[in-house]
């Protein structure tokens, strides 16, 4: 049972790192970024390739860096020019980017499933109350907690973090105070994309790499974001842990319905609190 719960946290952790990027981007750019699944998948492949040449950690850093740069480019080329368009247009464009990225990856890396080995030192197994559990999975949980703590510290107590929080509720008033919200937006999209790269690379030893891996996890991430209340970082954290658990219990006990369970949870939460977990009904 403990093992099951830990596995739920592993998936929840991955989901959180991915979903919190969506929350950041939605907050500043008001974009529902379907491309995020593609960024996750691309991050996994870049991480995989560099890791097999230069080792896991170099692969991780490379993937995060490349994705951050890609985030800035995407903000420049897509989000900013489309800022005043109907949100549906931007959403469709990001969906298009997802498809293009999937095709690109399929062309470069092929359709076959690939797997990456965990880094040396984290590839062992640990005994927990009589069952064995991979150390790497514990490390993933720890990393998710670290990302959550780091982000929350940054948002709560740094100057830029304050500007990010302010701009996600009222960008115009924030800009009037002297904040360059355009540059801030680019920074935040870069961070969101980098987190997708991070999430993708650390997922590479856990999930089989395939071009469609992004679309799968994207759906659960959206469920996390919506359940958590769209703009709430704490909400996303709680929702990710919940969905991670449910997903995993579903896989174990009702495999046939596993992919539906998170959606059911989302509907129930929204019936109870239409604005998501983080906001009380007004």
């Amino acid at each position, binding site marked *: 049972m403990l093992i099951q719960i830990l596995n739920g946290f592993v998936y929840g952790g991955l989901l959180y790192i991915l979903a919190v990027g969506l929350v950041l981007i939605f907050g500043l750019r008001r974009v529902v970024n379907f491309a995020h699944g593609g960024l996750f998948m691309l991050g996994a492949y870049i991480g995989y390739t560099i890791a097999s040449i230069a080792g896991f950690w170099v692969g991780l850093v490379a993937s995060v860096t490349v994705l951050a740069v890609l985030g800035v480019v995407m903000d420049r080329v897509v989000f900013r020019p489309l800022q005043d368009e109907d949100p549906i247009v931007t959403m469709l464009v990001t969906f298009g980017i997802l498809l293009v990225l999937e095709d690109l990856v399929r062309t470069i890396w092929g359709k076959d499933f690939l797997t990456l080995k965990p880094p040396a030192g984290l590839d062992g197994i640990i005994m927990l109350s009589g069952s064995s559990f991979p150390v790497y999975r514990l490390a993933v949980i720890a990393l998710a907690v670290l990302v959550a703590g780091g982000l929350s510290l940054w948002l709560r107590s740094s*100057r830029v973090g*304050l*500007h990010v*929080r*302010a701009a996600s*509720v*009222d960008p*115009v*008033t*924030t*800009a*009037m*105070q*002297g*904040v*360059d*919200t355009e540059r801030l937006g680019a920074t935040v999209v870069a961070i969101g994309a980098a987190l997708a790269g991070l999430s993708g690379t650390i997922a590479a030893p856990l999930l089989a790499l395939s071009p469609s891996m992004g679309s799968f996890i994207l759906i659960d991430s959206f469920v996390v974001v919506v359940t958590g209340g769209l703009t709430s970082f704490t909400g996303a954290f709680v929702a990710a842990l919940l969905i991670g658990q449910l997903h995993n219990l579903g896989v174990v006990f009702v495999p046939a319905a596993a992919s539906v369970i998170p959606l059911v949870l989302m509907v129930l939460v929204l019936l109870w609190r239409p604005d998501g977990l983080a906001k009380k009904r007004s």
Partner: protein
Amino acid sequence: MNLLMLRDVDAFYAQAQVLHGVSLEIGKGERVAILGRNGVGKTTIVNAMLGIASVRGGSISFGAETPRRLRHFTAARLGVAVVPQGRRIVPGLTVRENLLLGAATERPGPWNCEAVFGLFPVLRERAEIPGPSLSGGQQQMLAIGRALMANPDLLVLDEPSEGLAPVIVDELADTLVRLSAAGTSILLIEQNFSLVHRVAERYYVLSKGTIVESGSLAGLSVEVLKKHIAV
């Protein structure tokens, strides 16, 4: 040198022109009012400065600078801080965080949270509560405090008396006079004659997007002022 100067400004929202050749200037140490009825374009003057309404004719200068492109953040960085109509306290931030947001320009000067709390002690007591849960008068103090955090040369206030009880408006008048004595120039956009009368030395009257009158308030009674404006 003027802290703020508009020269023949034509300002638009999309295709709709709201300001027609507006010119005005505020020098160092001055207290100036812009008077005008509802919907004549008072807020649009502010919005033009902030790059919210688009300026398609004329120019706006802040101090020695005449930016070619007005971004939302330009005015604050060049020493002109705005207390917007409706106060625009940012939800989700505490009182203190709203103040800190005002310091985004990092302009040097005497104002910081402590100085603002000295001016408005009630904000110190309520520093850690959400900004929007303050009363109207306190929110106005917060909006003024936030603007001061930018250490501006000129403070622009857009209908600060709106929704405030008369006693609070009196306190507001005292505060503005004190701020000006301490070296901050004031541009007060108002429909409240008694506030204007107590604060400003000079006025402009805006009507249908044009300055139709201007002059000194010295020796003018509130009643005479009202008659002047009742155009």
